[in-house]
């Protein structure tokens, strides 16, 4: 630039350069900068992906791997917010194709009425194939959370029901919406989690999972559980729902609902199958749900959060972790690990 470098050498050696050389150098510099600027405009530089975009891309990658590697996959759809996010990601992953697999809902018979209505409407709108399975043995024995307790009810209607459905349709891979931040044993579960012919998980004998190379090979009768949301946190889920305007059931938003207080848990009286104790009277309260499951097992929280930003604010400020509203993993620290070994999602 400084006289094609000659000026620079001269300066370095303690010499001088003329004002003219310097002016020309500045002019050259200016032209170069303008050119560089123009170049920037012609070849746009994408900005690095932010955290949510990275998570989204990873989940999409995982879903496509399952389709490419597994013979007969299914996506578990439980109607909750995580399922809603998973569904949204599945639509994105295969666009313009529809997700090339059916959706499976294990209906315990005790879900909130609103969940079922939401589920049927969404599946119809999106033209997706929905399979619903309820454990017929449990139905016959009238298994319910009131007389049999949460543990038996969950095991028979949910865990056994799920195994029945997977066996019945011969699914070789099932997507689940579990996240690693939910619970300690989940933090160590693989994204592609291998299950034996009896659907069991062996936490001590997991396949190493390296880079984003996923080994989904199985023998006859074995299967894979795949968790595309493994690396999402609860806050990520909410933020994504907010950013992408994803539909979720109204139950997540605060509204006046009839509830009874059962040992600190606010249980919504969703239908007349719920036996009320002597003198117990449903009270109308402003409540919402942090997770959705079987209504007798899902405690509501008192809240006035009726918009997504309100909910997110509440999530950020509350210091009670998400699954506490659920009655199943309250017993001991390893309880979810035990359930998962047996085949629970």
């Amino acid at each position: 630039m400084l006289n094609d470098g000659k000026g620079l050498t001269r300066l370095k050696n303690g010499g001088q350069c003329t004002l003219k050389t310097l002016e020309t150098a500045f002019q050259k510099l200016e032209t170069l900068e303008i050119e560089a600027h123009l170049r920037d405009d012609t070849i746009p530089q994408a900005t690095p992906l932010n955290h949510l975009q990275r998570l989204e891309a990873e989940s999409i990658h995982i879903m496509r791997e399952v389709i490419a590697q597994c013979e007969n996959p299914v996506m578990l759809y439980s109607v909750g917010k995580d399922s809603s996010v998973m569904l949204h990601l599945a639509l994105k992953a295969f666009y313009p194709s529809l997700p090339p697999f059916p959706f499976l809902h294990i209906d315990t018979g005790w879900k909130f009425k609103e969940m079922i209505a939401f589920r049927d409407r969404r599946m119809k709108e999106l033209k997706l194939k929905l399979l619903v399975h309820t454990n017929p043995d449990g139905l016959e024995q009238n298994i319910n959370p009131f007389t049999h307790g949460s543990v038996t009810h969950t095991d028979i209607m949910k865990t056994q029901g799920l195994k029945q459905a997977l066996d019945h349709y011969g699914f070789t891979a099932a997507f689940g919406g579990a996240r690693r931040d939910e619970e300690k044993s989940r933090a160590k579960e693989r994204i592609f989690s291998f299950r034996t012919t009896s659907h069991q998980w062996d936490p001590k004998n997991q396949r190493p999972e390296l880079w984003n190379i996923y080994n989904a090979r199985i023998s006859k009768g074995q299967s894979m559980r795949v968790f595309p949301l493994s690396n999402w946190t609860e806050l990520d889920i909410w933020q994504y729902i907010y950013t992408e305007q994803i539909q979720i059931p109204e139950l997540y938003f605060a509204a006046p609902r009839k509830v009874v207080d059962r040992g600190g848990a606010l249980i919504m009286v969703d239908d007349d199958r719920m036996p009320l104790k002597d003198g117990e009277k449903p009270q109308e309260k402003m409540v919402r749900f942090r997770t959705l499951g079987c209504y007798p097992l899902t405690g509501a929280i008192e809240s006035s959060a009726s918009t997504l930003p309100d909910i997110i604010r509440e999530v950020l400020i509350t210091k009670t972790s998400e699954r506490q509203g659920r009655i199943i993993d309250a017993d001991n620290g390893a309880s979810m690990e035990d359930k998962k070994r047996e085949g629970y999602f």
Partner: protein
Amino acid sequence: MTDQEQIISKDIVSYLKTQKEKSFLRFITCGSVDDGKSTLIGRLLYDSKLVYEDQLNAIKNDSKKFGTQGGEIDFALLVDGLAAEREQGITIDVAYKFFSTSKRKFIVADTPGHEQYTRNMATGASTANLAILLIDARHGIQVQTRRHSYIASLLGIKSIVVAINKMDLADYSQYTFNSIEEDFRSFSKSLGFDHIRCIPISALNGDNITTKSERMPWYQGSCLLQHLETVDVNSNQNDGEFRFPVQWVNRPDLNFRGFSGTIASGQVNVGDEIIVIPSGQKSKVKKIVTMGNDLEYARKHQSVTLTLHDEIDISRGDLICGRSHPAQQSNQIQAHILWMAEKHLFPGRGYLLKTINKTVPATVTSLKHKVNVNDFSKEAGNILKLNEVGLCNIYLDEPIAFDPYSNNRQTGSFILIDRQTNDTVGMGVINFSLRRAANIVWQNTQVGKTQRAEQKHQKPVILWFTGLSGSGKSTIANLVERKLFDIGRHTYLLDGDNIRHGLNKDLGFTDIDRVENIRRISETAKLMVDAGLIVLVAFISPFTAERNDARCTVNKDEFVEIYINTSLEEAEKRDVKGLYAKARRGEIKNFTGIDSEYQAPHAPEIEINTLSLSAEEAAMKIIDYLQKNEFIVRTES
């Protein structure tokens, strides 16, 4: 209420906006057994207010039960999730934890320190951009520090934080800190880290974790969290050349044909000229499709679907590259392999090699040397055991597209899968293509297998006899050959003894030699099939893996496995050559059935039970099979 909470409650919408702009860092923590990794992560989670109250209560209870801190909160319990780990007080698997600050979101892989968990550390390192190596200030650099540094370097981590922990037990001494830093920098010179930062900390007391410690005023640098928030892990590795591994061909109807995948590196723009590796076909990018809208350009990490201007044949496994700097392709590569299974890696045995989007049968043809992960020295060896690293030459049945791992972690990596169990047994990073691959061109001979077989009026096939020593393999195979010869068929019998005296006289009877023995025989038999012959192979061939490899060397209908089923008792009773007696006396080592395993075939084409059939009857049964399946034509005689 903290400042952040105040912002959240006042103006959640603008808070959400700022959250979107957060960057992202994946890192790994490693160190030796009691260096306090889990405590450090627990502390980061606790101090960044990410522990919920009910979790904290549970941990407080657990601390009393299993805690190592005399009833005080044991932060390690936040991280050590699996029941076995809580009981033993060690971390045996990789645990992923998540936390965020106002600037960045983090995914942490907490990995075990013991040498027997080297593979777990490698797993965590494979997706990390930064490693925190913990060193106990009292002990300085240990063997483990070297091993962890080596693994981090092997897996391509360029940014290192050396967290010199337990400064509280070393009088917060600047001298101690400086000498450890000096040691680390000098030994790690050969490992190619771009960026090393040493920080004196106490995970237990929270010194220099989220705030600067007043107890070490001599330390001028930033605290750990501040460093993690600001360290630039991308500066040295810009997005690179465009690489798009095709995951899935998207064909909703006849009018749309797109290629779905995640951009491994670089950027792609509509109109870019591309080339497909390995096929070499060229085209231009027509559209970058996503659900919301078509994009003008997309970059590294984005999951998109591309359509092209030309109708060219592309499928899963292909790599779409920018035309000016395409990836390499080869079927012979050199790579460092870290072995992750109890069953050893045997050169010669077949595995499946899986890259980001392609799975091909592969054989490690030679182990150049092993690497001592503790002092980085090269050692001779012929097998790789669990947690060992070796430099290997690998032969692939089909060429793959790749870049050297040092250029691209996405397109330069692979895993090895066991063909029987489907387990992931090894991981590899590609160094380069063996130059030979480009030079070997298959001789395109005018006379082929078909012509040779037609000339002999037969269908070439391998009849693979397997069974214990003394089961009657050779006797039956000889009879079958005699019968085939008598009806004018062209045959050759490869027998254990005649091969072992010649071609394979350099091999013994250890597991690794048995594998190589069978590999050579398979290759020989394959050449003979190519020559149009009916090849009879009579070898103990005790391992399923090698018999399957042999099967894979030829076409599906050119391999017939014949299991000569004689129980060990019966074979030992016959003991024609007196070998069992010798083996029982310990005069022969590694004798199949005695001190070396025989794996019976699961589904052989023919099974001969020698207790119920005579050798003659067995031979007739095999001839019948060959006629029924039209290997040989039924003759009048």
